[in-house]
């Protein structure tokens, strides 16, 4: 990880974060890989050109993830203006070459059914190993609010996955 180690505009730091950033961008774009590439392109440009400045008030990863999230929102807004199509949070798609087992598919579907904030928190904390504080910072919400969303998300996921596990048996 490049957390806090590299300076603003360091391409090496971004390279170290790139796989995680990719997963985060794919999550934010509801599994649209083409759109995720556009988002990352714009976010990396903003960071490398210095338009987004890391003020060292958070880890570098938190900063980069925050930029990616803001960029995704901006890309969605532009697209919605151009096409009159708003992201609806449809169930997450998967690459054709990587059809996972039914439990993973069920997990993704359960995540897709979560409210947007809860899904983002789960993604940041569980899939990206961020602390709840860092996740709250990425999302621009208070830690108290993050805790509430996190607890609700976990409860919903447990319910959904237990039901699916029971169904499969």
């Amino acid at each position, binding site marked *: 990880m490049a957390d806090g180690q590299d300076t603003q505009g360091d391409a090496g730091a971004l390279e170290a974060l790139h796989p995680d950033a990719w*997963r985060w961008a794919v999550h934010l774009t509801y599994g649209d890989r083409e759109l995720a*590439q*556009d988002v990352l*392109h714009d976010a990396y440009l903003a960071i490398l050109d210095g338009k987004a400045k890391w003020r060292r008030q958070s880890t570098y990863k938190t900063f980069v993830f925050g930029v990616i999230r803001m960029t995704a929102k901006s890309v969605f807004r532009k*697209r919605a203006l*151009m096409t009159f199509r708003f992201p609806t949070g449809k169930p997450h*798609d998967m690459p054709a070459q990587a059809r996972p087992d039914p439990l*993973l598919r069920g997990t*993704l579907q359960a995540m897709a059914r979560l409210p947007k904030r809860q899904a983002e928190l789960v993604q940041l904390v569980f*899939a990206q190993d961020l602390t709840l504080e860092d996740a709250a910072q990425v999302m621009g919400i208070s830690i108290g609010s993050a805790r509430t969303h996190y607890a609700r998300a976990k409860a919903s996921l447990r319910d959904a996955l237990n039901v699916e596990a029971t169904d499969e048996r």
Partner: protein
Amino acid sequence: MSDKHLHSLIRKASEAQAGSAPSLRRIQSRSQRHPPMRWRAWATAVSACLVLALGLMISITSTVEREETILEPDLFVLPDPLERSDWLAYVSSQDVIGPSRSDWLLAGMPPQDSPFLTDGLGADQSPEFDAFMLVDQSGAPVSDPEFTNTVYVIERTLP
């Protein structure tokens, strides 16, 4: 289901969903794709432009009309037989004016040698006028004038 199990499941699901990341170089050299504007977006943009243009046209037209209404009395031209150096033309600036002569504003052609005749000068304010008489356009005195936008001529009597 424990937190650890949930953690592991979500991480694996997230990795399966994202697949392998394209190279950083590919991302950086990517040029942004712009989706084509759909017909509804075009229709909205064109309608907005039309509404704006229409609003602008109405606004300009009403302004011009208002100005024309205001300027109308100034179109007065002194009739030829009365174009004498000792005659002055006055016109009301209001639709209905009171009997006071101070309500009259200068609008006609002043005699060339009258230094006091300036635009907007009230008749009563001119020290050179010690007497007034309203006459109609044929030169006959008007004893009971209707104070409307009608143009009257005031005869000047020099001391």
